[in-house]
């Protein structure tokens, strides 16, 4: 009975969103905003080959700051929420293949992650993606070597430093550039080269570090409360 009621609501919701689908015609050309960002004179103002990165780090850099805050919050909340968990967790012995592979893969994954976020302004990827890859490396290690303690202090320092650098660079934009998060506080460099897009690669690198550290932290916290009871 209650499900019928729920179904009715869902159907009604479907009817409600139908006009959205119905009036969707796709895009024949870039919308105004995207078009603006794609104009050559504007592209060179940011000088980032990856336009998505340009949007994420500069035009909509404030969103990214918020995004970083959300991850930061999540990590912080989970940290104080899941703390003080005692109780032994019995772990199964991992297979030799797994542990060896993990040892081999871990540095490679870290390097891949770093590569992804450092080249975020040139190639697909960026801070979040790179950070996620780093975190995957961490989870791999956590699964492979559950007994090995993780240096959470290091993670948290990394997190803090990256965060402060991000905010600092953003503020610097407002102080010496044309606005908060202005990437032109550093030389814009040559388009398409590694050293281009001003502060973007630096910001994105620190975002990557921060995301990596935070996600790892969350995972470590989750793991730490695993217990048998």
């Amino acid at each position, binding site marked *: 009975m209650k499900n019928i009621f729920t179904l009715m609501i869902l159907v009604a919701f479907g009817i409600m969103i139908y006009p959205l689908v119905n009036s969707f015609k796709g895009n024949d050309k870039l919308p105004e905003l995207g078009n603006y960002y794609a104009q050559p004179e504007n592209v060179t103002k940011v000088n980032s080959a990856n336009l998505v990165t340009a949007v994420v780090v500069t035009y909509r850099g404030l969103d990214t700051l918020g995004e970083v805050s959300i*991850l930061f919050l999540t990590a912080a909340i989970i940290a104080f929420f899941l703390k003080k968990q005692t109780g032994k967790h019995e772990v199964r012995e991992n297979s030799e293949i797994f542990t060896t592979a993990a040892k081999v893969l871990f540095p490679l994954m870290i390097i891949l992650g770093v590569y992804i976020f450092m080249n975020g302004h040139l190639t697909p990827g960026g801070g979040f993606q790179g950070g996620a890859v780093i975190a995957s490396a961490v989870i791999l290690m956590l699964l492979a070597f559950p007994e090995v303690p993780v240096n959470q202090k290091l993670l948290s320092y990394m997190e803090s430093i990256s965060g402060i650098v991000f905010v600092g660079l953003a503020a610097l934009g407002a102080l010496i550039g044309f606005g908060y998060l202005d990437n032109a506080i550093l030389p814009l460099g040559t388009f398409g080269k590694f050293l281009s897009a001003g502060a973007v690669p630096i910001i994105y690198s620190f975002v990557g570090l921060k995301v990596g550290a935070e996600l790892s932290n969350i995972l470590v916290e989750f793991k730490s409360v695993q217990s048998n009871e």
Partner: protein
Amino acid sequence: MEYIALGTGMLVILAGLWAIMTRKNLIRIIIGFSLFDTGIHLVLVAISYVKGGTAPILDSTVCIQDAAQRIVDPVPQALVLTAIVIGLGVTALMLAFAMKMHKEKGTLDIRSFKDLKW
């Protein structure tokens, strides 16, 4: 192509909502929530598509001068990145809550968490 993405996205949203509203297990509800989020991300991507466009990354294939004609909209792509991270954060928190709730009552049935009412 974009129609399929949009339609799928909407259907995934509805599926997610159905799970949220009818499943009794906290974990399933959270999965429903994730589905709901994912559906929205799909819709975002669908909207960013420009017919015949390519990724908004300027390199040797897409040069800076004709970028405006050849790329898809970078804006929703930036938005979806943000949205994904937010979704991740919320999901992680919900899972943490679910863990604690399970610890408290030894069940994951949402109907047994009615200590607060009226």
